[in-house]
């Protein structure tokens, strides 16, 4: 190793935490007892490149054990995986949920992102910090969107040590958080949340496809899932054969729901055709776009559907290994999926001979650790490989060289769950849902100043107005001021845009994006300038720093907005707005990945569509 941490030693607990992930050390060369008489002559390694991908799980184990990644713990992890400490430190510091400084045994990450901010999160954080005082205010951490916007303000509570646990809750208040912070017994919600995250599931349930089992099945029961039609689509897939499945997928014209709208069938076919082996298929469950929570609803309430559709994808693309990469802030969805994977293995729906049909498919769940960028597919690959989640240049595209340099298919949770519908209905019948260019059902995440926030399923083609009405319209009968469509990487629209049909083609024509299905509603009382500033801060914080246009551009964008809002412009207001426009253009043109390319979108639309700053500096 190049750099050493000579004085840092792991505690017994830290050693045990790492060993729990990797198994006991087998050699003095990799952290075990030195046995030089045997090992001074021969060492079998390959450790470095075979196990490097275990770095994130090991760091998670250390973080959960000690509340931080201590130099001693890091050193032991490095010895076990033969990763240079400097590099492992680079990884540990990349992810927001890992701390390389000591933290209290209990911390609360309070979301202060857009929806929670509208719901008063900033005041809540201030109250909490005052209550705890300067000694203990380090128990309160500000977090970007936790993906629980329908129950804002939300929080993620973490306990480290013997009874390590993560709990996500919402809405939170002083009363809810106080017992936790003072280490008093607390009956906390675990497992699934109440179903009101999908309000339609409480109603007539008419026409629900993606949400058909949400609130109906017991998400922890494989038998219940099967009693509700589970694993029939996989059976159908095996009947069709690999090529048959891909044909149905292409007939269905299913476009990816993660934001890029790439035809899923085309992607699957490209992976299937690669001669290099092995192939991988990844379920992108790193749902981190502010305002997005639909995938969480699916994973928490219908986890087997995620597994079944991933298995179908693996089957069709000739992949024997699948990963589900889930964001670290989703403890409930994580535990539901963990349980589902275990049961699927036990009943032969995963493993070396799936359903007795003679094909193998393994699924491994990997947790992210607080990095928005890891939703970008190539960053996600790097993260699975145990590296900093920095995006790669494309080409080569993932279908040729994805995770571990092998052909890789990747779809997000919602896209995959659509596959069940494609196979159940048949590709052509599926394509008749929605519009010719935007087939199938679609989930939208309504949050902010709306009467009944939650994940809604509609067919492509309904208008924004109709969707808003389904959710009961603007809360408390107030007037609509703006809607953020597509998330932080999306753009603002005005009340004049309510007749926009929610399809790929209509949104494109209108110069907006559906993105990940975010529909965040702001009424007349919301201070939009500060919402825009929060979005700029979000991108500055989440930029991975790899490429200059984004690393520098996101900082400059936030600085300029701060000056404008404070009324301390350099030159005139129009000078500043022109500067912001130029910065945005550079980021759009020259950034490596979508984060930088889209980081100016919302800001730009706030300036030009909403004309937030037209009244002069706010």
């Amino acid at each position, binding site marked *: 190793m190049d750099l050493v941490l000579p004085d840092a030693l792991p505690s017994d607990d830290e050693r045990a935490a790492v060993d729990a992930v990797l198994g006991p050390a087998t050699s003095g060369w990799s952290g075990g007892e030195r046995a030089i008489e045997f090992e001074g002559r*021969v060492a079998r*390694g390959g450790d470095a490149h075979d196990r490097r991908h275990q770095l994130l799980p090991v760091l998670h184990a250390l973080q959960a054990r000690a509340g931080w990644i201590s130099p001693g713990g890091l050193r032991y992890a490095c010895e076990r995986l*033969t990763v240079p400490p400097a590099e492992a430190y680079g990884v540990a510091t990349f992810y927001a949920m890992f701390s390389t400084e000591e933290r209290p045994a209990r911390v609360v990450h309070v979301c202060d992102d857009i929806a929670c901010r509208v719901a008063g999160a900033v005041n809540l954080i201030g109250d909490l910090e005052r209550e705890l005082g300067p000694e203990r205010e380090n128990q309160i951490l500000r977090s970007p969107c936790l993906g629980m916007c329908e129950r804002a303000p939300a929080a993620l509570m973490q306990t480290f040590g013997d009874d390590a646990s993560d709990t996500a809750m919402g809405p939170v208040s002083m009363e809810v958080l106080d017992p936790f912070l003072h280490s008093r017994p607390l009956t906390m919600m675990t497992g699934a949340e109440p179903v009101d995250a999908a309000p339609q599931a409480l109603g007539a349930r008419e026409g629900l496809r993606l949400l058909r089992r949400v609130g109906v099945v017991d998400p922890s029961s494989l038998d219940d899932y099967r009693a509700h039609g589970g694993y029939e689509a996989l059976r159908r897939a095996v009947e069709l054969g690999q090529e048959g499945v891909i044909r149905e997928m292409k007939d269905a014209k299913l476009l990816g729901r993660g934001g890029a709208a790439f035809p899923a069938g085309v992607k699957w076919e490209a992976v299937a055709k690669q001669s290099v082996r092995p192939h991988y298929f990844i379920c992108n469950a790193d749902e981190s776009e502010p305002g997005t929570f639909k995938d969480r609803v699916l994973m928490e309430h219908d986890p087997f559907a995620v597994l079944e559709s991933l298995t179908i994808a693996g089957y069709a693309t000739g992949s024997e290994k699948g990963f589900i990469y889930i964001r670290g802030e989703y403890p409930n969805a994580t535990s539901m999926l963990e349980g589902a994977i275990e049961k699927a293995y036990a009943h032969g729906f995963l493993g070396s001979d799936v359903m007795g049909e003679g094909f193998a498919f393994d699924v491994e769940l990997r947790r992210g650790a607080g990095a928005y960028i890891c939703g970008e597919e190539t960053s996600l690959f790097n993260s699975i490989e145990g590296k900093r989640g920095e995006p790669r240049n494309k080409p080569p595209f993932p279908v040729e060289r994805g995770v571990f340099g092998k052909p890789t298919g990747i779809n997000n949770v919602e896209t995959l769950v659509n596959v069940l519908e494609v196979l159940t209905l048949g590709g052509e019948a599926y394509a008749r849902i929605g519009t010719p260019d935007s087939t199938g059902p679609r989930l939208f995440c309504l949050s902010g100043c709306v009467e009944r926030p939650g994940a809604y399923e509609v067919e492509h083609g309904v208008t924004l107005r109709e969707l808003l009405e389904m959710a009961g319209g603007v809360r408390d009968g107030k007037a609509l001021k703006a809607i953020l469509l597509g998330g932080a990487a999306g753009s603002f629209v005005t009340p004049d845009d309510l007749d926009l049909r929610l399809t790929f083609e209509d949104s494109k024509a209108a110069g907006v994006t559906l993105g990940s299905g975010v529909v965040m509603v702001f009424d007349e009382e919301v201070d939009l300038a500060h919402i825009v500033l929060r979005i700029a801060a979000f991108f500055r914080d989440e930029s991975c720093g790899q490429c200059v246009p984004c690393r520098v551009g996101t900082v400059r964008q936030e600085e300029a907005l701060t000056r404008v809002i404070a009324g301390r412009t350099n030159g005139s207001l129009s000078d500043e707005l022109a500067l912001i426009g130029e910065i945005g253009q550079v980021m759009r043109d020259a950034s490596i990945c979508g984060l930088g390319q889209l980081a100016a979108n919302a800001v730009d639309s706030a300036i030009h569509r909403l004309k937030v700053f037209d009244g002069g500096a706010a």
Partner: protein
Amino acid sequence: VFGAGGGTSSYEEVEHTDLIVLWGSNARETHPIFFHHVLKGIRNGAKLVVVDPRRTTSAEWADLWLGIDVGSDVALSNAMAREIIVSGLVNETFVKRATMRFKAYRDSVMDWTLERGEQATGIPAEVIREFAQAYAKADRAEICWTLGITEHHNAVDNVLSLINLGLLSGHVGRYGSGLNPLRGQNNVQGGGDMGAIPNKLPGFQDIENDPEACARYEEVCGVAVIPRYGKNLTQMFDAMEHGDLSALYVIGENPASSEADVGRARKLLGNLDTLIVQDLFMTKTATMADVLLPASNAALESDGTVTNSERRVQRVRKVLEPPGNAKDDIWIIAQLAKRLGFDWGEVTPRAAWDELRLISPMHAGMTYERLEALGGIQWPCWDQDHEGTLFLHGRLWEEDKAKRGPKAPFSVTPFEPPVDELTDEFPLRLTTGRRLDSYNTGVQTGGYTSPLRRGETIDMSPEDADRLGVVDDEVVRVTSRRGSLDVPVRVDRGLRPGLVFMTLHFPDQVDTNILTIDATDPKSGTAEFKASAVRIEKISESVGA
């Protein structure tokens, strides 16, 4: 064996091979750029075997590390050869078609049983078998070596023994299979290619046995070639000792620090009538010079070409004027020629290069324009339609006997342990090498800071440190049959008991070469820097740590 000194493979082949062997090479620290290609190979699925007495940072990346006894390389390769032969893994077609003297070689290795191999190398018999089988069975395999092979008294035999393995398994002359010495500087290869070796004209043309090449040289240059090999560095020092050599012109070398048994070397340099040194830095040798010629930096201050380990000739361009009176090497040499009665006029790098192309057939097709357009060209490049050569010796695989050309000979390689024997008086094996952030005698790297650098140390295993009762940073006395010095201890878990390690990066602090033995290989002139016998003594009872 093959007629020209150069790695047979290109870097890209290392990325696409199935088995990479680093033998006597800590490439991760000493050839970090090349190691990037190794890492890509590993990422693409290649297995890595590292043969090195020390468990180096390169060895940490290996699938299999063999910690052999220093200087037992021939024993290991001979035992591997026998295993390959008795297991029926010899590439019969290749051996029959393209090699000669196989029978003599086979007979010479047949008593190298795995057990004897284990005895001589310290590597368990079954591990030798595993390595031999893996190498012979690999579809494609690359052996790469550096000074761990060549800084021995039997350096040439070490190299030949590795070539034997390549011939035996047919791992040469094909894409992804080859035999590669890694060069220590960006242009060591180019120095040899240009004829800066005592027995070759430019382009590896033999001075004594290639009248055609000599005639070509005479025609182009207008002077006769004296058809006699010159002296290598070791022979020069012997000649100084015998009084046969009284003037020395040293360009960019620092023998007063880098020679083994450096005390003797300095004495001989001091006795010269004339010592001329041409260098960028005031090296130890430069301080002894009668005439000092300030040179310019090859990377930034002069135009020309360099040739890397994959035989790729590349253009170098001047971006800075040299400071003060420092001059380009070509200018200095031309001025010297003028004073000696040969006025070459104004010599440009390009004119010198074009003259070389007339003398050296393997460079003939490399015009400056083509070097620029193609991003460098790998020799041989016979004419301007030739694209250069990705890997050497592909001819050995030709169906047509005429195209196949001369056969490659096996060599009988007897095992000779290191000269400096281990005894009760000198029980520890000292081996030397380099670290990532320093280069040779430190002339080029001493001016830069590095967070890794700790100055010179003697590295030893924790077990030896315990036995001697010494701790990290404690200064100890190290003594060999030639000399004695004091140096701080660095405990290194990568060493086993009995094996200690030093560098020669800090001659002003610790003159490591006072300890090393100047037993040299008569065939290559290289000294056995890698194997000295030493003892270590604790200096005081007051532990300073």
